[in-house]
């Protein structure tokens, strides 16, 4: 771990008119750290994620990111070209619904290869080879490389979406309910895969989830949101095993035990 945060978030607020999306959120994210944002629907966790990932413009506050050259840059002051470049090289965004993050009418290989071509790779053979490697890493058989994601199961699509995001070796991944809508067994496989990738690649990640088991398995640290505010945050196992706030205690006690 280096001694500067990768992402510095200061007093981020987002209002939809008079309604609060999220309010006064501040934290640092360090290289290699996985942060889970938990809370029920409407708690503002997705709004916060979108503000951080520059998919939404926050009403106030600042998000700074440490670029590959080490310079801290405030995201809102970057040009759109720079932001979009950042998003397809140094960042990833994994949507809950894979169809939002994939090109459904384009083959799996091209889905993975797109970012490479976007940064100027012009050798078909090499692009295809890299795409094949990534399909293997996300446990998709390489003989599916020319199939469209339309022909894939939900779990495969989600894994393809992850491969598509990771191919440029990003340093930060945003994930919005990455296991939502998947069968439990498929979820487990995906979680394990994510866990391994995050560890092997030293990725930083911000994961929005309502599933505390996902937070427990993947994250180092977590934030609990309610009504747009972060009401509790800290080490993941401490928040889950020794919750302080009433709402967190309610959340933790609401988990079904198998």
């Amino acid at each position, binding site marked *: 771990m280096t001694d500067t945060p990768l992402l510095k978030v200061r007093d981020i607020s987002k209002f939809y008119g008079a309604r609060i999306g999220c309010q006064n959120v501040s934290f640092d994210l360090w290289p290699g750290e996985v942060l889970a944002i938990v809370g029920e629907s409407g708690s503002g966790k997705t709004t916060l994620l979108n503000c951080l990932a520059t998919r939404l413009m926050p009403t106030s506050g600042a998000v700074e990111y440490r670029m590959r050259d080490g310079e801290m840059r405030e995201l809102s002051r970057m040009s*759109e*070209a720079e932001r*979009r470049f950042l998003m*397809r090289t140094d960042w990833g965004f994994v949507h809950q619904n894979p169809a939002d993050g994939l*090109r459904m009418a*384009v*083959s799996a*290989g*091209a889905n993975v*290869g*797109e*970012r*490479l*071509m*976007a*940064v100027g790779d*012009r*050798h*078909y*053979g090499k*692009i*295809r080879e890299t795409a094949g490697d990534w399909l293997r890493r996300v446990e998709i058989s390489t003989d599916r*490389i*020319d199939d469209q994601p339309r022909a894939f199961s939900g779990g495969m699509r989600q894994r393809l979406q992850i491969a598509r995001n990771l191919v440029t070796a990003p340093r930060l991944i945003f994930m919005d309910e990455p296991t939502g809508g998947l069968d439990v067994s498929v979820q487990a496989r995906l979680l394990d895969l994510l866990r391994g990738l995050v560890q092997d690649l030293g990725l930083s990640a911000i994961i929005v989830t309502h599933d505390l088991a996902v937070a427990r398995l993947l994250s180092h640290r977590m934030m609990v949101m309610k009504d747009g505010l972060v009401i509790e945050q800290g080490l993941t196992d401490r928040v889950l095993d020794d919750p302080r706030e009433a709402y967190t205690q309610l959340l933790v006690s609401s988990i079904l035990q198998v």
Partner: protein
Amino acid sequence: MSTADMSSAELATYNFAYLDEQTKRMIRRAILKAIAIPGYQVPFASREMPMPYGWGTGGVQVTAAILGPQDVLKVIDQGADDTTNAVSIRAFFQKVANVAVTTKTREATIIQTRHRIPEEKLTEGQTLVYQVPIPEPLRFLEPRETETRKMHALEEYGLMHVKLYEDIARNGHIATTYAYPVKVEGRYVMDPSPTPKFDNPKMHMSEALQLFGAGREKRIYAVPPYTEVVSLDFEDHPFEIQSFDKPCALCGAENVYLDEVVLDDKGGRMFVCSDTDHCEDRCAHGHRGHLAYNKEAAE
């Protein structure tokens, strides 16, 4: 009233070249902007024309805006001067502008074309006007116009190679044979209209001005003379034009674009120049293909 009086009375109801002067001025402004930013699609207020969309309304408006009384107009459709589309547009301008027309490439000052570039090298002072159905090369991969505009603005063209990648993945080679995307002057990716990729190299450093009009889509774009036009490709799958096994059956020309013509219902076929003017010109100069002799004998 004599027939001549009738037609002059009718002509009086049209402004020169059909469009009113304000409209022509608006289109000329769009054309100037397009020339200033090679490959960039300039929006313009496309007018209703007395022909259906898909029949070259964009090209016709561009031609109408640049046409002067001294111009000599040639109109081709897939290389031919004598097909319906070419004949009607030529007749249209004869009627509304009373300009000289020709089928000879070298005599024309303006050539309006649907889907071909003449085989004969164009020269300085000539203008080639393309009829364009869909001006947006990114359309089929990214349907959102707001997004494709942004992609052009930020020069995000990775998607274009995704299309070529898919081609190779499916067919083992780049199977796109027409409307093959090009990069203009190292900046904008452009759809050269549905011309065969065979014609792409002719666009590069062309001495003639090339204008593109899309009527339904309300876009004009341009390639000024002596502009770099590079077909997109991969290092290991370089751009290649079509090649033909045999020369033209009528004039014996090689290294030209050929059309397949079915001769009978027993599988008989021949390959002839798609550019009819080029073919006739060669025949007039004594060039003969293997079927040309029979044709003459029959006559």
